[in-house]
């Protein structure tokens, strides 16, 4: 059982690290030469990937998947709140500039 759990932690680390390396592909995907370009698609996907990573850390590394339902809902709710705040402030900011 111990080896199984270690393997699970290893897989979690690999997934999180791969998602981080995925940013290398996203970064500069819309840039022209050395000039960085604004992109809603890049911004939204970057924020969504970051929040998926946060949820994986909550559930797997911080063990909330075995936690009482209140803590699981609180942490999931917090990730949703972060998504709402970050994406909301980005789109509201873009609309009123």
């Amino acid at each position, binding site marked *: 059982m111990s080896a199984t759990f270690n393997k699970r932690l290893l897989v979690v*680390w690999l997934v999180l690290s791969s998602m981080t390396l995925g940013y290398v592909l996203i970064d500069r995907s819309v840039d022209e030469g050395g000039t960085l370009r604004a992109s809603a698609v890049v911004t939204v996907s970057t924020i969504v990937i970051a929040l998926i990573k946060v949820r994986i850390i909550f559930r797997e590394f911080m063990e909330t998947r075995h936690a009482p339902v209140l803590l699981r809902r609180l942490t999931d709710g917090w990730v949703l709140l972060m998504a709402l705040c970050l994406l909301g402030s980005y789109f509201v900011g873009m609309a009123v500039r």
Partner: protein
Amino acid sequence: MTNIAGAGSAPDEVDGRSVATDTKDGDKPAKFVPGQPDMWAFVLFETLLFTSYWVVYLIFRTQNHELFLQSQADLDLRIGVFNTIVLLSSSWSVARCVQASREGRFRAALTNAFLTIFFGFVFLVSKMFEWIKEIQMGNTFTTNEFFQHYYFLTSIHFLHVLIGFVVMGVVVYQLWSPARRSQQLVETGATYWHTVDFLWVPIFALLYVVR
């Protein structure tokens, strides 16, 4: 506070983790809060605090897109990726520390606690190297709005990593002697360290990658 030595109820295992089974619903293992609930209150509070600051950052960013994009070009994504993977590695090792301690493998738990401290140290050195690089390029706290946010966010996170060393010191102190071993304190320390890790994830995304 739960003392590991001489723990009470008969343990069951969930993915290699011993969990007390004195539940009413038979086969299902008991749900448990990892560490002290107070630490979870702190985690949620800190997350709210950082989220508020990220909102401020994104609103400022949308109002001055060109400046933020130009300044962002001076950051080295490779250092950001390296730092993120180092912190993820530290989270992985502290998770292994918790698991080993739960299973009574205290030597392995200590090794993983020291590994976590090592990764934290690598992060700090790498972060200082990046700051020095930026300062040499002429990008200081007063250069522009983007770098004010950059230095503020990275330094407040840096401070959390420093506090993390104290927390990991407590974890090592707990694990060192059989008389002191408390699984709950080990889990509480690990919860703090994971928070330092997951707060960095959006900071990295917002400073280095968003467009």
